[in-house]
């Protein structure tokens, strides 16, 4: 595949799409599919055929359109109309209205902050391209970055560009991506691996699923560029088996890319060769930790090990391995296409670019959003999210999953970036954001996360295996109002111990939900401490 050939495919595809007067896009992501968007797609196709509109109207399935709360969503282009809560019965009506006055009762106002305050990069093509057609991805400029890199850039120039962008790992820890790439590139060894971490186990997070379902080629292109930069010839995507649609679409993408020569031997006529395989996770949260993930790819129990050595030196099968998250790879093609400086224009000084969040819980507009770093939590919850529904009061927003913490109302003006969230005792995490209203008890919330960490602990190290159980039991004492002052002290000491003595990130972060609720909602703990000594003990 040469650049000219790629352009030819792109032009042909664009022509095909411009021949028609209207493009009707139906969201076919897990969220909308479970609200029967497949039936809407079928009804649209049938109705268009019946009316003989095939040459005027193109019906296509696309990835996530973002506003999951209003699904199933249908978008009409070029008019830019979005319809919510569609049913197959609405199909004739929307076809009748094509080019005329839209169906007001089903219309979503696209001028509301939910749409206008976002800035898309990783999700640029979500809801625009058909995730199962490589030609559609190419028509939006897909794989152009790869060809440019392979023909014009040396591996070290690619890394320089990524370093210039200031991109940091989107899995949550925020390690500089360019630095990680250069470490793997410098590591000695004939055989190197590139791994995509798509084991999104955080409850309340679905960014990676959505990216893989909506735009799998973008992630794949990012991985191939990474492989070229670090000198790897084999890649693995480790994805949760709980995401069957994402798995299916990614596998399709791999086959299509192989057929077009973007994967395999001598990619695009250059000496560079690279292969990608899918590995399924099997329901273990700890496998999101990179050393555990690599164990799992090797067919073992996913137990983390001490670092160093880091996977960059000794990873999969003991070889240098680059591990990055789905969203990190999804950011790569645009960085190489537009340059690192372009990417660095967005965001804050230390956190560049945009971040995808899964906004859920007690908030009006639940769904998937991508916002520039530095936006405040208040803007996310109130402007984009539309605030708390049912006239309830906002209590906290939980970020970062079981490793994160709860942030109260008074700190909502904090800008969203890696350092600020960490300073609040929470973390960016992979990007789950769950809004909690005044009906939730914060000890319950903390205990919920502790139950999760306890059950998901791999059991390898004692502080995590035993500590999480004890923390869970202690919180139970508070819930039953049996706790004493002494228990509060123990709780705090134990949190500190588990945090400092655990082997991997799961254990080290497990106490965060307790620590952050103790910090911001301490009165709830105090209110549950037993006031008087029970009669039998007195």
């Amino acid at each position: 595949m040469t650049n000219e050939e790629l352009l030819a495919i792109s032009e042909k595809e664009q022509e095909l799409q411009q021949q028609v007067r209207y493009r009707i896009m139906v969201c076919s992501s897990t969220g909308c599919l479970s609200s029967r968007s497949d039936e809407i797609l079928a009804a649209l196709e049938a109705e268009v055929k019946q009316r003989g509109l095939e040459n005027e109207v193109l019906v296509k399935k696309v990835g996530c359109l973002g506003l999951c709360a209003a699904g199933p969503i249908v978008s009409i282009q070029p008019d830019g109309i979005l319809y919510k809560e569609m049913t197959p019965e609405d199909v004739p009506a929307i076809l009748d209205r094509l080019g005329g006055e839209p169906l007001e009762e089903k219309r979503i106002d696209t001028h509301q902050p939910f749409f206008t305050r976002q800035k898309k990069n990783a999700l640029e093509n979500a809801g625009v391209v058909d995730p199962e057609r490589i030609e559609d991805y190419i028509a939006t400029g897909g794989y152009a970055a790869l060809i440019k890199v392979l023909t014009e850039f040396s591996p070290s120039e690619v890394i320089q560009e990524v370093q210039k962008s200031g991109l940091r790992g989107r899995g949550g820890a925020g390690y500089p991506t360019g630095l990680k790439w250069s470490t793997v590139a410098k590591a000695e060894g004939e055989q190197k691996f590139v791994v995509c971490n798509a084991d999104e186990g955080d409850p309340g997070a679905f960014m990676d699923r959505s990216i893989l379902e909506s735009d799998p080629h973008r992630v794949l292109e990012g991985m191939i560029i990474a492989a070229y930069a670090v000198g790897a010839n084999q890649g693995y995507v480790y994805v949760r088996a709980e995401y069957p649609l994402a798995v299916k679409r990614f596998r399709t993408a791999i086959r299509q890319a192989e057929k077009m020569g973007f994967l395999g031997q001598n990619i695009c006529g250059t000496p560079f060769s690279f292969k990608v395989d899918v590995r399924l996770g099997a329901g273990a949260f700890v496998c999101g930790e990179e050393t555990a993930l690599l164990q799992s790819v090797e067919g073992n129990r996913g137990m983390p090990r001490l670092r160093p050595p880091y996977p960059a030196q000794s990873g999969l099968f003991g070889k240098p391995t680059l591990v990055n998250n789905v969203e990190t790879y999804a950011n790569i093609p645009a960085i190489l296409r537009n340059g690192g400086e372009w990417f660095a224009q967005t965001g804050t000084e230390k956190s560049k670019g945009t971040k995808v969040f899964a906004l859920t819980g007690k908030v009006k507009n639940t769904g998937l959003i991508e916002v520039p770093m530095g936006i405040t939590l208040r803007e996310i919850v109130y402007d984009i999210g539309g605030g708390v529904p049912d006239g309830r009061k906002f209590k906290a927003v939980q970020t970062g999953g079981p490793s994160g913490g709860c942030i109260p109302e008074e700190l909502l003006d904090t800008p969203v970036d890696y350092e600020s969230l960490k300073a609040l005792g929470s973390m960016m995490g992979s990007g789950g954001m769950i809004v909690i209203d005044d009906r939730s008890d914060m000890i319950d919330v903390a205990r919920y996360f502790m139950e999760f960490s306890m059950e998901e602990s791999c059991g390898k190290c004692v502080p995590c295996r035993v500590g999480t159980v004890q923390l869970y039991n202690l919180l139970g004492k508070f819930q039953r109002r049996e706790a004493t002052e002494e228990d509060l002290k123990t709780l705090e000491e134990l949190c500190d111990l588990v945090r400092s003595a655990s082997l991997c990130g799961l254990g080290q972060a497990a106490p965060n939900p307790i620590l952050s609720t103790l910090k911001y909602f301490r009165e709830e703990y105090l209110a549950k401490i037993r006031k008087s000594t029970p009669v039998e003990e007195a």
Partner: protein
Amino acid sequence: MVATTRKVNPPDGDRRWKIVEATMRRHGYASTALIETLHSIQETFGFVSREALNYVAESLNIPPAKVFGVATFYNLFNLNPVGEHVFSLCTGTACYVKGAGEIVDFMKEEFGLEPGQTTPDGKLTFMVARCVGACGLAPVMILDGEVVGKLGVEEMKAKIREWVNHDK
């Protein structure tokens, strides 16, 4: 290549073992194919039996203890057959704050089932999933593979009753 091509016979004459066999062959009978093979067994038979574990151990030349260790480490593998109908409840955070916990209590009261259990008549299995990633629809439940979301707790209960009684 020499040691890995020895032929191990499947536990019984069930033709579905061919699918499992094909998975192992595709990975060159390498020990790293263990998890992929377990997935293949579960997809084919619905659960991973003791016999299947031994068969995999022998075929891939891995100690049975390790195979058992891996199969039990991951939540996704069922070592017991599941019921005719499977009810899975998402207990992710978004579902939790929207009342999934009450449904766990309901399953206990109404059907006597704790997560992971099957009714004695083998009709219904109750499972919990740690977030299926459809948080925008929270609370989410999966009735025989069909994702149902955006219901209130009482509506969920009604839907579960209706679904369970459907083929009575």
